[in-house]
């Protein structure tokens, strides 16, 4: 069996793949967080819960209504997006313009309530969600065995991230969003309905989290705490990428995912902290993050 630095290559490739998968979720989730933070100046602690809601929505659509994975990919983000819009209109929008800490506390509270409710209803144990038959099985790539569903997740997340990036960088709506991130009052003075833009952005960010949740359901089990396990790492990714930087969130997500995978191969003891070590170093050297603008 061939080895690199004394590590069997299948183990190395396997960990890189796992790193890419984890990185896909880091990227999709930190992307939504970065967009929401950039425009609303809200640190959305409910992001993990919205991801969990997306996975549960897929699970419940399948088990209660018999709605399959492909439809769930559309319906779950829609449902979670609508819930987020209601939350933004009725609660979050009251907190704009005051200390950002209140937005953080509100979303943190919502996350605790949602996770608590789902634990009460479904228990802490995970529920299995089978990958759709079209994506089950795997292929032998010669140097490693690739489960098809995992390859699909990496590709789907790339498409989602690039699509979101194009939406923000290349469209008129994206130009409103970028401008309002810099100076919301002036954009509104130009006649853009900024309150509506804020609502849609929060809804879109939550829908992205839910979409990631549906993609995650067949890989990780659907459990009430799946989001809170992930969200702390995702916050570290956002900090490393630079708060509010879209491209930073995407690139950092994948890179840190792979870095974490490689650490599992070469120095497993450090794999659960490597991302936080990187965060600490970045904060010391470049407090605005790798892609952030110094203010």
């Amino acid at each position, binding site marked *: 069996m061939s080895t690199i630095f004394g590590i069997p290559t299948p183990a190395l490739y396997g960990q890189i793949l796992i790193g890419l998968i984890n990185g896909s979720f880091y990227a999709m989730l930190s992307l939504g967080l970065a967009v929401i933070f950039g425009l609303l100046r809200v640190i959305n602690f409910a992001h993990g819960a919205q991801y969990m809601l997306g996975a549960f929505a897929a699970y419940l659509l399948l088990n209660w209504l018999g709605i399959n994975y492909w439809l769930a990919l559309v319906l779950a983000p829609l449902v979670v997006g609508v819930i987020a819009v209601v939350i933004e209109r009725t609660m979050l929008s009251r907190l704009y313009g005051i200390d950002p800490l209140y937005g953080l506390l509100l979303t943190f509270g919502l996350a605790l309530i949602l996770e608590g409710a789902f634990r009460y209803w479904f228990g802490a144990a995970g529920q299995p969600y089978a990958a759709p038959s079209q994506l089950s099985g795997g292929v032998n790539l010669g140097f490693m065995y690739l489960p098809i569903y995992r390859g699909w997740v990496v590709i789907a997340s790339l498409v989602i991230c690039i699509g979101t990036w194009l939406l923000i960088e290349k469209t008129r709506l994206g*130009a409103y969003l970028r401008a309002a*991130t*810099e100076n919301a009052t*002036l954009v509104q003075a130009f006649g853009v309905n900024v309150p509506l833009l804020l609502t849609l952005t929060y809804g879109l960010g939550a829908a992205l989290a839910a979409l990631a949740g549906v993609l995650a359901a067949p890989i990780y089990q659907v459990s009430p705490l799946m989001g809170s396990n992930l969200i702390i790492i995702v916050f570290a990714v956002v900090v490393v990428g630079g708060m509010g930087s879209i491209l930073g969130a995407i690139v950092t997500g994948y890179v840190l995912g792979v870095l974490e995978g490689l650490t599992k191969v070469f120095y497993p003891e450090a794999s659960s902290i490597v991302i936080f070590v990187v965060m600490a170093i970045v904060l010391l050297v470049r407090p605005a993050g790798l892609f952030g603008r110094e203010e």
Partner: protein
Amino acid sequence: MSSAPLLEVRGLNAWYGESHVLHGVDLDIREGETVTLLGRNGAGKTTTLRAIMGILRRREGVIRLRGKNLLSLPLHKVAQAGLGYVPEERGIFASLNVSENLTLPPTVSDSGMSVEEIYTLFPNLYERRSSQGTKLSGGEQQMLAIARVLRTGAKVILLDEPTEGLAPVIVQRIGDVLVELKKRGMTILLVEQNFRFAKKVADRFYLMEDGRMVNSFPGHELDARMDELHEVLGV
């Protein structure tokens, strides 16, 4: 000249937090007029523009555009009613290129200039249309800030100190642009410290002091009133 003003401000009071900054400001602008607010720093000129625009929210009084009351409108409806705002700090967005900055404000009527006309009027902006907005020189940023509201078809343009901090040759160029806009029948409310610049374009002057309108006079009286102005403006 028609008698009913296009923009009418009556008894406008405004507050920054608890501090009362505008005291019963009255102001009329007729269609096609250029009116200039003069006053020292802190006299309330910029505040008057911000209060008319609705950026400063704590206000009382009457602000009417073609008879329509603007005071109760949410901020984004004020632009849609026909006011175009060019802020003192210019407000060019760093994350947008020149062309995106130019086309950012939604059009509010079909009377605005086309992008082609704007690029003819400001050839520099055309050359730099793909540059990041804030990479432009101060003068170019000012041109962009003015060009941006010309596209929307706003009826009245609120222009806050367009010459501030710019070289004389650029000030000259901006003066030419304002003369050109006047020829096209644009209605302009200008805040300006440099009244020699304002003299070229203003039909009337208002003089502000401590958040109040203390005087107003037609443009041709400027020279005769120099002594009075020097006293009030402290220049």
